[in-house]
């Protein structure tokens, strides 16, 4: 390979004479061709190496995310009882659930639980961030301390709130009674409206530190000059928060809110431990209802369909989050 032109140039006698330019070109072409070929081989090798390196992760994703996900979709289209083979029934499970008054209650409860929890977490999180931003002493300690609910296992949180809200022995009722504020204890977990409020309170308590710390981190990136200028112009603290802080951190607010919405919509532990979806079906949400259908009643197909009903909402939210993140990336 590449020997011909060189030998031709050197031999000279047999072949026609070539101009020096042509000669130079031909002597250049050989190493370039060699280089190109080498480059090509190298690129293939690199690609192979890249695929080899990606393969374990790809297999993990396929096995742990793609397979369960598509299997769940498949199961939701079948009549599948635990231990029995699955029979394809198309959209029957979805239609049955849609027609079920009980499922509609579950769907509504899921909306109330999610919107109520997220709304409260955003407000409390913003307040926490604004307060901590102004705090001078002990800010680091306070930040760590306020993160406690976020790091405590959810099971412990749910059991603690269950005890706090107990009719007879709960700290909330006992305190209110002892202070003479009420004459009879609230039925926090027995009254359908209060039960929903109770599980929302527990969820908010667990989740607000995540909001607060994220918002605080974002607020601290806002240049101090803006606040100083606003102060000179006579802006109040509220105006500074509303006109400077909030617009500056709206990206973080959106992402944190959307992520937390996805988590809350899929929440199970708090509701199951505190009320098991009761009283009646007053706090039954997608996750607890799916558990009841799938594990207790052994109806996997129906349970998957119940879970899948929240999928379009979650998918939309994921699209929003990804687009938002992408927009931020492009902007930066």
């Amino acid at each position, binding site marked *: 390979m590449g020997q011909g032109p060189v030998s031709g140039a050197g031999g000279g006698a047999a072949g026609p004479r070539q101009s020096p330019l042509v000669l130079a070109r031909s002597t250049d072409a050989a190493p370039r061709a060699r280089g190109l070929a080498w480059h090509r081989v190298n690129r293939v090798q690199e690609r192979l190496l890249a695929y080899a390196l990606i393969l374990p992760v790809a297999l993990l994703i396929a096995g742990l995310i793609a397979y369960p996900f598509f299997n769940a979709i498949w199961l939701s289209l079948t*009549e599948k009882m635990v231990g029995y083979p699955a029979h394809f029934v198309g959209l029957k499970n979805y239609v049955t659930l849609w027609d079920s008054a009980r499922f509609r209650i579950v769907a509504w409860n899921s909306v109330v639980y999610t919107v109520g929890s997220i709304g409260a977490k955003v407000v409390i999180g913003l307040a926490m961030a604004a307060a901590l931003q102004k705090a001078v002493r002990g800010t680091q300690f306070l930040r760590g301390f306020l993160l406690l609910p976020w790091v405590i296992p959810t099971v412990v949180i749910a059991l603690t709130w269950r005890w706090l809200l107990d009719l007879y022995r709960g700290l909330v009722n006992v305190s209110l009674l002892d202070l003479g504020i009420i004459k*009879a204890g609230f039925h926090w*977990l027995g009254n359908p409206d209060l039960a929903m409020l109770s599980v929302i309170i527990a969820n908010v308590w667990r989740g607000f530190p995540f909001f607060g710390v994220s918002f605080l981190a974002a607020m601290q990136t806002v240049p101090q000059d803006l606040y100083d200028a606003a102060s000179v112009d006579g802006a109040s603290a509220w105006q500074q928060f509303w006109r400077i802080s909030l617009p500056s951190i709206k990206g973080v607010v959106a992402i944190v809110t959307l992520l937390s919405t996805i988590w809350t919509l899929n929440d199970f532990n708090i509701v199951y431990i505190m009320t098991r979806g*009761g009283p009646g079906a007053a706090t039954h949400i997608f996750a607890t209802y799916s558990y009841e259908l*799938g594990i207790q*009643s052994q109806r996997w197909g129906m349970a998957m369909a119940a879970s899948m009903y929240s999928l379009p909402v979650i998918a939309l939210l994921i699209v929003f989050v990804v687009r938002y993140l992408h927009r931020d990336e492009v902007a930066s």
Partner: protein
Amino acid sequence: MRRMSLRIVVIVLIVALAWALQPARAADVKLTLWRLKTYIPPADKILDTTIQDCAKKIGAEVQIQTYTFDDMWTKYTAAIESKTLPDIAEFDAVGPARLANLGRLSDVSDLVGIVTRELGELAQNAEGAVKFGGKFYAVPHYSNALLLFYRKDLLEKVGAQPPDTWEAINEISVKIKKAGILDYPQGFPWNRTGDGYDPAMSLLWSYGAAWVDKSGKYIGMPKDKAVQAIKVATAPYLTDKTAALDYLSWSGSGNNEAFMAGKVAFTPNGPSILFQEDSTKHPLRKDTAIKIMPNGPAGRNLALTFVMNWGVPVDGKNQKEARAVVACIMSKEKFTAYMTGSFQQAVPLFRNLLNNDYWNNADGKVIVETVKLGRPVGWPGPTTPAAAEVISSNVLTDMMTRVIVDKVTPEKAVDEANQRIKEIYDRLPVK
């Protein structure tokens, strides 16, 4: 050097060959056993010792895993699908029906025969949960009686006799409330726990509101009778105000705690409250009494729901050893040790031990009588997967809470429940 290496290789080969050709050692048999973790730890300890002794006796090793009532079906569901059921499984009242219908349990009629010879005839009311198509698919272990717990001191204060009917419980509760003794004396939680659905079945059946005939075929709850039962169950929450809405959210131990805290005068439970009060020298022990669950217009048809049974899943590779261990656990000597150490939690389902002196006391007689009067899940028919699902999907207690929480009429609640039950029976025909 080469010769040395060759020698080592030969020695290794000989040792490997000898190890491979040795007769199977008994300790090579490794069994797995799943059992319920009960509210009586000392009884659990006795059972574990028994299991280990029995395994040792046949030269096997046994690994015991436990589950609670809350996670039992999570564990079994995963094992059914992945075909990893244990060698020996302790099931609740509906487990044998569910798994036998799937063809996942071995026929243990021979084992039941062995146990019967030693412990006496199997109680008729226990057969329905373990015998299908003339074959036994599980060996009944014990029953935990659902009792009516009441405060005798409070009843004395209002001049009432221990109640024998559901209406009497309601009336006495009103008296206690009116006397200003307790705000909410009636602790019947119609919720998603055994303390909810067990009494719900007893109440409905005692009012003649069963949903199947004797063959186990769906007939639907007679509306008038079911409505009557619902009215009795919901009056304390809706009209008498003798039950707190909060009771609907109790966990499995919520009613135990409320009773022992002196907040309720009546509650349904197994004997575990007696154990807890005895072991803590509780001040209310002297005022705590038990009674057979109430009578109804159609008789005293008590649900025998808390029945535990030993099954030998077909997944197990050591069927012979698994059967030997079950036979040993159910031998007279071993079972008597467990029964007498169970704080009256483990009521035998084989006749001879029911006459044991251990039960010859006031509480013991009530407990044994309760089990004798018990009806299997799916009564008056046999226990079937459909009957199991009626309980597990909370149809009966939902019927009560639809009236209490959602304020629908009892008639509508019965219609809805019948519709759900029919759908279950249509979907789950018995093989």
